[in-house]
Structures are given as structure tokens and as C-alpha cells.
């Protein structure tokens, strides 16, 4: 307290209050009545504004960051929506391709040259019997449309099978590959008559009793011969894969593959007799 003044020369608190109050009131009067404070104010703003800008910077960054996360969330949501949409479209596209394939096959059926004396009846396969022993399928045309048991069923490329059971609105077709089916055929190359039988496998047929020296070679195309009165002549049936001589029997065996695309399409043609249609 060595430097404390001996006499209180400072003004008292109320006196200072009065002084400062008067000063401020004076400033206010001057500021409100005249433009004297304008230049001072602009000078001060030149100092304050940069400070304010610097202080605002971190908050601007924070705002940007918040925006970044918002945008990120939006993008994630949008991405999810788009992938859902894409899946939906992929399913649609698949349906479209299916329809296109079906359309192609139906067009082929339409342009098929038909054996004389027959009338085609287009039928749709409604279901395939899940029978492990018997290869059959059901089509949606029956006796009402003139289907008769025994009529051949073909598709755009070849023989498929034979109608074996007829009900008014549907029929059952035994496939050529069914093991108890057989079709009289003819080697297209040399006219040799044969009988092609099913094996029970979807993509194999066989010629069971073939003479050891019969002129059948791999690659030969077999067509229906038409001599049995069931199948009209000239429908492609099978292509020979190989000929196997067998030890136990005096006969050889030829393994063939069916030409008709059995079980691959949804539409087939039933060949009806012409005179039935006239009725």
C-alpha cells in the first residue's frame, strides 16, 4: 500500500456515474441528430467484421460437415431405392425375354410345313406329370377341339409324342422319350425303315433291333415313315448318335437323340386328321 494516495483524489462513484451517463447521452444525441459517427462506425466495422468472419469459420465447416452427412444419408437411401427398382426391372426383363422366346417358337410353329392330310391344332402345355416312370405332359386341348387319342404331337423342330388320353378340355401326351413309346421311322439318307423307341431318358432314343450290317451311321436323320397310319410321313424324329454292336444278341443297337425339343417349349401342335375337321 506504499503507493496509495494520501488523499482520495479520484471521483466518487456517483460522480463518475453522472459523468459517464452524460457522456453517453451526449454521444447518443450526436449520433442520432448528426452523421458525425458514421465514419467512426465504418472504421470500427472494418476491425470487427474480420474477427466475426474468423469466428464464424468453424461453424461454417461444421455446417458443411452436417450437410455432407445429410447428403450421404440421402445417397444411401436413394441407392437402396434404385437397387430395388433395378431388381424389379430385371424381373420384368426376364419376363420379357421369356415372352420373346415363346413368341419366336410360336412363329416357328406357324410357319411349319405340315404333312398332307393333317390340320394343326396349337395347344399349350399346362403341366408336366411329375411321374418318374412315365413321361407325359398335359395340354389344354381336348375332345371338344377334336383331339383324338393316337394323334401325333409335334413342335417346331420335330416329333414330340402322341396323344394317349383325351378328356373334354385337356389331353395327355406320351412323349417319344417315354420307354413304352415307339415310332416307325425311316432313315432319310437311304430310306431304311426302322423303329425308334424311347429309353426313359429325356434326351436319348434308341433303335433296338438293328441288323448287324444295316446301313445306319452316326449323323443320319430319321423321319417318320408314315406306314403305320398314325404318324404322317416326313416328320423329323431323331438323329443317330452312334451304332453299337452288341455281344449277347445278333442285333446292333443305335443310340439317337430326339430332334423335337421335348420339354423345352410351352406350345406344341397336335396334328388332327383333315376329314375330322370338315365334320
Amino acid at each position: 500500500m506504499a503507493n496509495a494516495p494520501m488523499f482520495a483524489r479520484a471521483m466518487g462513484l456517483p460522480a463518475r456515474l453522472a459523468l459517464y451517463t452524460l457522456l453517453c447521452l451526449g454521444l447518443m444525441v450526436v449520433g442520432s441528430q448528426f452523421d458525425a459517427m458514421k465514419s467512426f462506425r465504418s472504421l470500427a466495422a472494418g476491425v470487427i467484421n474480420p474477427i466475426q468472419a474468423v469466428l464464424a469459420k468453424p461453424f461454417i465447416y461444421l455446417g458443411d460437415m452436417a450437410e455432407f452427412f445429410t447428403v450421404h444419408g440421402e445417397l444411401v437411401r436413394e441407392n437402396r431405392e434404385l437397387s430395388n427398382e433395378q431388381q424389379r426391372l430385371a424381373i420384368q426383363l426376364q419376363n420379357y425375354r421369356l415372352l420373346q422366346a415363346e413368341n419366336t417358337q410360336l412363329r416357328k410353329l406357324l410357319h411349319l410345313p405340315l404333312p398332307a392330310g393333317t390340320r394343326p391344332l396349337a395347344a399349350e402345355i399346362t403341366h408336366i406329370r411329375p411321374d418318374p416312370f412315365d413321361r407325359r405332359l398335359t395340354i389344354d386341348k381336348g375332345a371338344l377341339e377334336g383331339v383324338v387319342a393316337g394323334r401325333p404331337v409335334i413342335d417346331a423342330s420335330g416329333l414330340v409324342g402322341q396323344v394317349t388320353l383325351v378328356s373334354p378340355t385337356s389331353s395327355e401326351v406320351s412323349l417319344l422319350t417315354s420307354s413304352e413309346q415307339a415310332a416307325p421311322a425311316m432313315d432319310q439318307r437311304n430310306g431304311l425303315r426302322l423303329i425308334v423307341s424311347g429309353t426313359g431318358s429325356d434326351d436319348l432314343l434308341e433303335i433296338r433291333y438293328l441288323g448287324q450290317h444295316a446301313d445306319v451311321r452316326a449323323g443320319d436323320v430319321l423321319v417318320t415313315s408314315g406306314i403305320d397310319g398314325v404318324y404322317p410321313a416326313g416328320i423329323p424324329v431323331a438323329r443317330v448318335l452312334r451304332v453299337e454292336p452288341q455281344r449277347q444278341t445278333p442285333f446292333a443297337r443305335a443310340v439317337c437323340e430326339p430332334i423335337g425339343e421335348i420339354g423345352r417349349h410351352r406350345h406344341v401342335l397336335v396334328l388332327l386328321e383333315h376329314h375330322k375337321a370338315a365334320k
Partner: protein
Amino acid sequence: MKTEKPLVPQGPLLIAPASRRIVFGWLLLGFLANLLPWPDAWRWLIPDFTLVVMLYWCIHAPHVVQLGLAMLLGLLADITVGSLIGLHGLTYTLAAYAALILRRRLENFELAGRFLHLLPIFLGQQLLTLLLGLAFHEPDVDWRFLAIGMTSAVTWIPVAHLLDRLTGWTPEMRIEPADGNGRSAK
């Protein structure tokens, strides 16, 4: 074991008065807090941090914060707010005057009691600012800004608590009246 409480704080209880550096540092912090980019829609709720810190130091460091400094801070506020120069200067000075008058009394109160004393000062300062602005040149005034008085007073509680802790001031340190009327010998 009861000992008589000494007349003035002794030993570790005796703390040095807050230094100028600390006081000005905190005033600067309060001023910068006012400058922060508060959302405009909530302007009328944002407390006046400068005033809060200033009033605290008026009470706890009257050797630093006097009426003159209060007026300067008010003028600074005028510049930043953009109000008529002298408006905040006047109201800050009056608020500081009220705090300086109440200082001795306030030291005897806990935080809540001090809050109740300061609330009218904050509210009065804000009301006076608005009224003076209206009287001088502003055509209209947004009365919602009175809420600043309230929020400033509420903000004063945590600020005062924090500064009390930082400076080491506790109510036990207040200088008891020396007339020996028995209150100090509890």
C-alpha cells in the same frame, strides 16, 4: 473440535485478487462469444455474454472493472450490435454501477441469492436499452429482446460458478464484519 474462524482468511484460504490479465482475458472471451455466428432466428434468446462476465468481475474484481471500463465495453457492444453509439455504453455503466453498489451485499449470498439480485439488473439493463433506443431514433422495437435479460441472468449462474471455481473463491472467504456481533464466531 471447534476453532474460532479467523477475522480474515488465513493460509491457503487467502487468495490473491484476480489479476488484470485474467479479468481482461475473460472479458475478451465474453466479447468473442457475443461475436459468434448465432442463428438470427434465435437472436432474441442469446444472452449478452460480455455483460455477464463484466458483472461478475464488477463484484469480484472491482479494482479492475470500474464504471469507465463498463462504458468502454458498452461502446464496443454498440459498435458490434450496430446500435446508436452510447446506448449500450449508458446501460452497461448503469448496470455496473448497480453491481458495484450491491457488491458487498452480494458477497454474502450463495449463487442462487446472487442470481436473484442480479436478475433485475439484467432485465433492467435490457429494458432500458430498448426504451432508450425507441426514444432516440428507432421507429419500432422487438420486445422479444427483453428475453435476453432473462437468459443472461440464467447464463450468469454457470459462468459465475465456473469463475468461482477457477479463482478459488468460496463463500467462506468473505470478510466477516469485524464488529464481533457473534456471527463470525460460529
